[in-house]
C-alpha cells in the first residue's frame, strides 16, 4: 500500500483539474465498455485493461508536447486516449475494422498512430524499450528538442533488453523518460518473487541514471514528477521513474487470480486514482456534482460514438491481406 500523502488540489487551475478528471474518467469508462464488448465478442484476442492505473498515463501525458514520442505496451488503451488518439480509431481497431488506428491489423495490443508519435503497443515484454532509446537517439541526432516517454511494467525489468537499454541510454545521454508502471504483479508473479532488489529506483540508480519512485495512484504527483523529469531530460539525459500503482482487474480479460488475495485488491481500490482525485477537487471547491455529471455524460457520449463508428466501419478486403509487409512508397 502507498502511504505517501496525496498532493493537495488547492491552487489547481479549475479547467486543468477538469481536464485531468475527464481524461481519467474517459479511460475508466472506455475500459469498462471494452469488457462488455469483449463479452459480446465484438473485441477478440487478448484484452489488457488499464483500470486502476489511469493516473499514470494521464499524469505523464500532461507534460508531453506534440513533437514528443510515446512507446507503450499491450496495456495501452489509456496511454493512447490520454495522448489524444481518438476513441473512435481505438475502438475501430479493436473491432478489427479498416478505420482503426492500425487498419485492424494490430488489435488491442498494437495501437499505432504516426500523427501523435504513438509508436505502439508492443506485446513482447521489454520489446519496446530499446525502440524508445532509438527514437530518442534519432531526435538527438536530428537536433529535435524532443523527449520519448517509454512505458513498461515492472515485469519487464527482469529482461535483458531493459538493462541493455538503460546502460546505453545513460551512456549516450538519450532523452528518454523510463516510466515503469509497477502494478506489483507480472501476470501472476508478485514483484518480490521476481526481483532480487525490490526497490526499483535503487536498482536503476546503478546505471547512474536519476531514479525515483512516485505515487502512481495520484495524478497530481505523477504530473509533478514528469514536469521535473522533462527538465532533467532536456538538460541532462535519461531518467527513470517508478510509478507505484495497481491493476484492479485480471491480467488479461480473465484469469483465476490465484496469485493475490481479494482483500488486497479491495484495499487498493480504496486508493482509486479517480475517487481520491474527485474528493480532493470537491474539497477544494474545484468540482461540483453537476459538473461531474456533465463530464460523465460527455464521456459516455464519446464512447457511444466510438462504438457506433466502429460498428459502421468496414472490413479490409481480403485481397489486401499481403499489403504492408514492405513499404509501398519508395522514400
Amino acid at each position, binding site marked *: 500500500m502507498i502511504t505517501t500523502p496525496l498532493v493537495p488540489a488547492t491552487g489547481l487551475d479549475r479547467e486543468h483539474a477538469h481536464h485531468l478528471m475527464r481524461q481519467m474518467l474517459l479511460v475508466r469508462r472506455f475500459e469498462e465498455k471494452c469488457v462488455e464488448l469483449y463479452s459480446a465478442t465484438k473485441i*477478440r*484476442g*487478448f484484452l489488457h485493461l488499464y483500470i486502476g492505473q489511469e493516473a499514470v498515463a494521464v499524469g505523464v501525458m500532461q507534460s508531453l508536447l506534440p513533437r514528443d514520442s510515446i512507446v507503450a505496451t499491450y496495456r495501452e488503451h489509456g496511454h493512447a486516449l490520454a495522448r489524444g488518439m481518438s476513441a473512435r480509431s481505438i475502438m475501430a*481497431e479493436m473491432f*478489427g*475494422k479498416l478505420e482503426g488506428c*492500425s487498419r*485492424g*491489423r*494490430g*488489435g488491442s*495490443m*498494437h495501437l499505432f498512430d504516426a500523427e501523435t508519435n504513438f509508436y505502439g503497443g*508492443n*506485446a*513482447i*515484454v*521489454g*520489446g519496446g524499450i530499446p525502440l524508445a532509446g532509438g527514437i530518442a537517439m534519432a531526435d538527438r541526432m536530428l537536433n529535435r528538442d524532443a523527449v520519448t516517454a517509454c512505458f513498461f511494467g515492472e*515485469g*519487464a525489468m*527482469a*529482461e*535483458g*533488453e531493459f538493462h541493455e537499454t538503460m546502460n546505453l541510454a545513460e551512456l549516450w545521454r538519450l532523452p528518454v523518460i523510463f516510466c515503469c508502471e509497477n502494478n506489483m504483479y*507480472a*501476470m*501472476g*508473479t508478485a514483484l518480490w*518473487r*521476481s*526481483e532480487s532488489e525490490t526497490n526499483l529506483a535503487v536498482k536503476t540508480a546503478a546505471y547512474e541514471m536519476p531514479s525515483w519512485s512516485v505515487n502512481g495512484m495520484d495524478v497530481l504527483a505523477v504530473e509533478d514528477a514528469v514536469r521535473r523529469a522533462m527538465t532533467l531530460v532536456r538538460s541532462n539525459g535519461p531518467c527513470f521513474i517508478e510509478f507505484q500503482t495497481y491493476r484492479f482487474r485480471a491480467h488479461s480479460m480473465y*484469469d*483465476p487470480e*490465484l*496469485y493475490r488475495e481479494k482483500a488486497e485488491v479491495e484495499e487498493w481500490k480504496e486508493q482509486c486514482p479517480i475517487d481520491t482525485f474527485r474528493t480532493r477537487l470537491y474539497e477544494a471547491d474545484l468540482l461540483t456534482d453537476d459538473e461531474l455529471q456533465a463530464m460523465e455524460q460527455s464521456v459516455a457520449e464519446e464512447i457511444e460514438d466510438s462504438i457506433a463508428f466502429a460498428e459502421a466501419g468496414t*472490413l*479490409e478486403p*481480403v485481397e489486401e*491481406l*499481403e499489403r*504492408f*509487409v514492405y513499404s509501398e512508397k519508395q522514400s
Partner: protein
Amino acid sequence: MGTEMIKMTYRDACREAMRDAMHRDSRVFLMGEDVGMYGGCFAVSRGLLDEFGPERIRDTPLSEGGFVGIGIGAAMNGMRPIVEIMTVNFSLLALDQILNNAATLMHMSGGQFNVPVVIRMATGGGRQLAAQHSHSLEGWYAHIPGIKIVAPGTIEDARGMLLSAIEDPDPVLVFEATALYNMEGEIPADSGAVPLEGARVLREGEDISLVSYGSSIPKTLEAAAALEADGIDAEVLDLRSLRPLDNDAILDTVRKTHRVVIVDEGWKSGSLSAEITARIVEGAFYELDAPVARVCTAEVPIPYARHLEEAALPSVERIVSTVREALGTNG
C-alpha cells in the same frame, strides 16, 4: 480384452506426461514464467505446484534468455529440466541460448557434454492474437542441427512424445499447438512414451498424400473426410518429428499415391514445406504424377482482424481445393 480408454484433452496430456516423469525421476523439474502460482499461461501446469512444491515447479521472472540458459546448464550438470516458454515468439529472446549453446555444446565439447533439456512452447495462430503472439516458427528451428524438434498433433503424441523428450539425452524442443490445447479425445490408459522419431500414417488412402503436422492435423483430417464424400481417397501422414524428418515415410507415401499436398502453418519461403518438397524431388521425383502443392500461411505477419487471420492461415477449404487442383478435378 479391449484396452481401457481414458478421456483427456491435449492440455491434460502435456500435464500428465510431466507429472508422470516427475514422479519417476527426481531430477526432473519444470521452470518458466507463471508455471506455478498462476497455473501456466495456458493452464498446462495447473495443480502441479501443489503436488511438487516450488523447488520443482519453479516460477521465473521474465528472463527468457536467462532461465533457458540456466536450464541448459542444469541439464549439463545432472538435472533433467523442462523449461516452458509461454509462446514461440518469446523464445526468440532465448534464441542465443538455444542455438549457440543447447545445439552446439555436445559437438564443441567433442562429445563430453550432452544437454538433456526439454524446452516446451506453444505455437501457432487462430486466436486473433496478432503478429507478436501467433507465429509458427518450429520449421525454422528445425533448420538447426543439435536439437530435436517435435510437434505433436494428437493427444496420444502430446503425452507420449513429451515423455520421450524428457528421457532423451539431448535437447528437445516440443511445440505444443495453442489451437489444440482444448481438443478432447480418448487414448489408451496405458499409452506411454512414443519414439521421438518417425512419422505416422493417420489415415490410409490411395489417391493423394496429405503431409502435415501439429495444429494442421485436425484440419487435414477434416479435409480428408470432406474429400472422401466426393470419392477422393486421401492418405494423411503426420510428421510428428520435424527434426529428424522421417524421409522414408515421406517417400513411401509418395510412391503409394504419386501426388502430394503439404499442409504447414509456417510460411512457404525458406521453410519446412520447402525442405519436404526438396526431399521428394531428390528421392522420388519420377514417382510424381503432379507437382507437389503446398498449403501454408500467407507471407505476412499474422493480422488481428478475424477475416484476415482466417485468410492467412491454412484452412480446410484451402486444403480441399488444393487437393482438387492437384488431382485436376477442380471446377
